């Protein structure tokens, strides 16, 4: 898929360049992973050591212990797994809705011309949904869900998150669809294909990796959403972000639980992100028209 390999500079330069590239990649990877490493070792440190001893290397500088993990899962295990399940359901549901509606809208904005309400204005309108800070609409959302009798349900959060992440899908997919050459669509139209068929058989397969990216981003935003998860739920539909916020109480922040909960909260999305991207792409390219 990469078009950069179509040309090659001179041999020796290529070798040096490759080494430099790899050094940068390694550094960047370390930078991306270092907070996780820190979270892992912190979760294995005895509570008394976390704030009193500078220690980066387990076994050498501190004695790792399962104390925090045991504590967490014996006393909060049920809440945490429940919250993880809630978060997974909410994020998946919201992503499904946001990406489906958003991809279609992105395609529509990229390929059609609207007269009354111009394309760019519509795009701006979708973008403007992200302008308002969440707390401005927190209370009215609460009232809305209370009226619909949806307080403390996962549906409320699915709908809220779908609404908030839809603009990402629209904007990203719009750009990607615009990049796709129009000629493909035109030739299919000449063959008599319907608009929707062109969308599913030609445009989607070509844009499949971008759909995966949009899905990842919508999932991430829904997964990390805190304010509405707090306001709209009481107990049954609490997402994992609220459980994480619960590390702070009158005796301060329990840093050892910050580490364990951060790691627990990153596991499902990491797994999903790594595995799902491939399946999204595969699924979308399944009906591709070759050539």
């Amino acid at each position, binding site marked *: 898929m990469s078009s950069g390999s*179509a*040309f090659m*500079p001179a041999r020796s330069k290529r070798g040096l360049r490759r080494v430099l590239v790899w050094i940068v990649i390694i550094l960047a990877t370390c930078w991306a992973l270092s907070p996780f490493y820190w979270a892992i070792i912190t979760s294995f440190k005895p509570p008394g050591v976390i704030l009193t001893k500078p220690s980066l290397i387990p076994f050498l500088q501190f004695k790792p212990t399962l104390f925090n993990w045991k504590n967490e899962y014996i006393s909060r295990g049920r809440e945490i797994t429940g919250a993880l399940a809630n978060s997974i359901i909410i994020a998946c549901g919201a992503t499904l809705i946001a990406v489906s509606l958003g991809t279609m809208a992105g395609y529509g904005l990229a390929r059609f011309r609207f007269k009354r309400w111009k394309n760019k204005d519509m795009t701006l309108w979708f973008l403007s949904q992200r*302008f308002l800070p969440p707390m401005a609409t927190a209370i009215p959302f609460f009232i809305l869900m209370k009226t619909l009798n949806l307080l403390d349900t996962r549906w409320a959060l699915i709908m809220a998150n779908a609404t908030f992440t839809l603009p990402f899908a629209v904007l990203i997919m719009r750009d990607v669809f615009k990049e796709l050459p*129009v000629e493909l669509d*035109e030739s299919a139209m000449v063959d008599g294909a319907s608009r929707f068929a062109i969308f599913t058989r030609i445009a989607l397969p070509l844009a499949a990796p971008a759909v995966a990216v949009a899905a990842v981003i919508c999932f991430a935003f829904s997964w990390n959403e805190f304010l509405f998860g707090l306001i709209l739920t009481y107990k049954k539909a609490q997402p994992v*972000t609220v459980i*994480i916020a619960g590390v702070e109480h009158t005796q301060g922040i329990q840093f050892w639980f910050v580490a364990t909960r*951060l790691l627990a909260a990153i596991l499902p999305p*990491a797994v999903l992100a790594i595995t799902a991207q491939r399946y999204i792409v595969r699924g979308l390219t399944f009906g591709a028209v070759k050539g």
Partner: protein
Amino acid sequence: MIAGGIRERIPPFTRGKMAKKEGAKYFFVGPGIIWVLLFTLFPLVYSLRLSFFRARLGMGQQFIWLENYGRAFTDYRFWSVLQVTVFFVVCDVALTVLLGLGLALLFHRAMRGQRFFRSIFTMPIFTAPIALGYLGLTIFHEEVGAVNTVLRALGLLHLPAWFSNPWLARIAITMVDIWQWTPFCFLVLLAGLQSLPAEVYEAAVLDTSSGWAMFRHITLPLLLPVLFTVTILRVVETFKILDIPFSLTSGGPGMATQTYSFYIYLTGLRNFNAGYASALAYLLLIVMMAISLFFFRRLRQIYE
């Protein structure tokens, strides 16, 4: 600019006999628009209406027209949080977009293990910002934190107390924020890069083999729409930054890292001064609308 001549920008379906089939366009954008309207109409109207009232807890609502908006301009906290937020917007967006672009170009080459590294780079955006902020307290701890441990090993004698100094606190927040959001820019820019048609490069390689010239004259112009989208998304999101200042510095020391959203949160949900909070939110909306419109007008030919 080669880009302008490469392809037509006018959508094809409005030409000739295709124009009659325009009905389909509503089918594509309709559901999305209806969904958004359904869930945002009531909250928007409610909060907009509230911004014209004095609505404190335990007191009846009084219609005070634009007084809330006017009050913002004489509120020293409003100006303080606006400055702080603009600082974060400028620094964060510039750094995350540049870093994201650099990483995307890096990963755009064919190489083994690309998927593995891409997955690794996706992980930071799944980290709950609140957890990250709390973890950051231990990372930036003056004596035992990771950052200062490394600085100490490098020989620095006077270790910074990150949260005792306004500028150090801001830098700490910027560092955490960049860590979290560069992957976002990276992913979107990479997707954009990978969707660029290969023929363009094949044509160009006949003209020049310099990587930098390729980038400047071909890649960059083609990538500009995606770059623009990423930038505007980052600007919009960073204007609302809340979770990390909330958990990492609580807006401190003093008000040095109290951002606009934080102030709205305090005003609306802590102090239950709902009218003023709504007004502040809509003022932010106006600012962001102005910025977006400016972007749209300037880059009209690209963003049609």
